[in-house]
């Protein structure tokens, strides 16, 4: 066994009585770092350490990343698709046109009068008059029932006004306009399908809620799964945690590597999710383009933007950190020296 001088050496630098062999040339170190430097050092250490541990268990790390990646990729893909649908919906010109059937007794001159007055309104772009003779002929041509129409004694159609609302009028303004038109003297009947617009908007809202709901469920699932992974990691390092606590490692010191582990798992999951979303969308792009072409649209599916990809990685990281926070809060307290 060594001699006393080394014991003195260990304690050198402290204000202790000089023992045998005390020798200033054998200073052992300069003492701990400044608290802030130490804090940074501990963070770097914990970050590197937990990354190391993950890399050295590639299979289980990859599995965790996959689980998180899939849990994030599904809602992310749906969100991208949703934003595509919303953008596409914006480009659709609502072919809104009111057909106003006038009273049977209204003459063509009176019809033109009404039309001129209507055109003054700000929410109306244009009004054209369709006289009853032309209307009936058109109807015959469109339906192929010319012979039937020729056999009619009298023209059953009244004069008709075709009202084109101003562009970019929303559903409620459209309803107002419909009311105003219905109450115009001389108008017998207004035909306009405002309902389809409302239905379309409601469907979008429903879709939006569905995506958000699904996303939330997947995200909560991801947090729980990662929390469980961390619980197992804590369990596996129980002995180490106990010793560290015994020799002066505080709660924060013990917790840090697990927080970083959560962060790395989350960021890895986020990165994997980015890859999955890109693959997913590229698989959908060509059939979607074909489908839209059938509807005479040259819309191209918009992929995951760079910013959105970054956000996905960020969301992954925050989720990881969040579940590590909750897991360590719950489980670390239970690991105490006996």
């Amino acid at each position: 066994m060594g001699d006393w001088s080394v014991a003195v050496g260990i304690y050198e630098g402290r204000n202790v009585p000089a023992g045998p062999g005390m020798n200033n040339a054998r200073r052992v170190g300069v003492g701990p770092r400044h608290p802030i430097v130490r804090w940074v050092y501990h963070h770097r250490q914990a970050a590197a350490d937990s990354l190391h541990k993950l890399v050295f268990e590639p299979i289980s790390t990859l599995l965790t990343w996959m689980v998180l990646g899939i849990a994030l990729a599904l809602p992310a893909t749906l969100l991208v698709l949703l934003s595509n649908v919303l953008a596409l919906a914006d480009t659709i010109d609502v072919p809104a046109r009111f057909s106003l059937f006038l009273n049977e007794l209204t003459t063509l001159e009176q019809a033109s009068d009404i039309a001129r007055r209507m055109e003054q309104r700000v929410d109306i772009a244009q009004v054209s008059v369709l006289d009853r003779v032309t209307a009936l002929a058109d109807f015959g041509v469109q339906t192929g029932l010319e012979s039937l129409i020729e056999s009619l004694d009298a023209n059953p159609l009244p004069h008709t006004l075709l009202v084109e609302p101003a562009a970019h009028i929303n559903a409620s303004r459209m309803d107002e306009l419909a009311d105003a038109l219905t109450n115009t003297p001389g108008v017998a009947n207004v035909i306009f399908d405002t309902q389809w617009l409302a239905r379309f908007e409601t469907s979008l809202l429903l879709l939006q809620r569905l995506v958000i709901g699904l996303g939330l469920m997947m995200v909560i699932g991801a947090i729980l799964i990662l929390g469980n992974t961390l619980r197992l990691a804590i369990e596996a390092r129980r002995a180490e945690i106990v010793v560290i606590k015994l020799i002066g490692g505080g709660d924060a010191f013990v917790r840090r590597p697990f927080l970083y582990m959560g962060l790395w798992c989350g960021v890895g999951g986020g990165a994997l999710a980015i890859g999955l979303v890109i693959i997913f969308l590229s698989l959908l792009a060509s059939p979607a383009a074909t489908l839209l072409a059938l509807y005479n649209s040259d819309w191209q599916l918009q992929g995951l933007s760079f910013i959105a990809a970054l956000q996905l990685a960020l969301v992954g990281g925050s989720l990881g950190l969040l579940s590590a926070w909750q897991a360590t809060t719950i489980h670390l307290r239970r690991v105490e020296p006996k």
Partner: protein
Amino acid sequence: MIVFDRVGKRFDNHDAIRDISLTIDSGEMVFLTGHSGAGKSTFLRLLMLLERPTSGCLMVNHRDTSRVKRRAIGTYRRDFGIVFQDHQLLFDRTVFDNVALPLHIAGFEMRDVNRRVRAALDKVGLLQRERANPAVLSGGEQQRVGIARAVVARPKILIADEPTGNLDPQLSAEIMSLFEAFNQVGVMVVIASHDLALISRLRHRIITLNNGRLVGGGGHL
């Protein structure tokens, strides 16, 4: 300085420590003895804040330990070096890394860590085994690794619970003189041991407990 002022510790309906008042000065070396179940370990665990007194007041370095909050326990324990009877070494790392652990917690520079760990291992005669896994060492060697870890960060107070529990007399005597060496440089040393033959040969105060009561060696208060 450690001051027990009418300290009691009660578990459920059993008093492990009863109404103990005593003082241990800085720089002093004391032994703690008594029959099995007398309360020696509980006494040391109170010092480490592994247990809290159920009555009385425990002062360490003029600080009321009941004021030490949970968050501050880590910092508080860094003033102590502890040697455990069951060593409490980690078998997933080398001897060197085991001894370095308190320095990492305290945030020492790497260069500093290397020198201090080597000095501590040299002191306990295990410098050649620094790369070994502690699991392959003998009981006595493991105990010495534990001692190296306890002193490496230069604690002001060294605590040991049965440090010679299952060692042969020769090794036990060597370990005790090691503790005396640290005491020589001003470290307070508190050792629980029931090896009366060994500790009475060393000329230090012996605190005797019986059923949780102080029956001998109580200091001035």
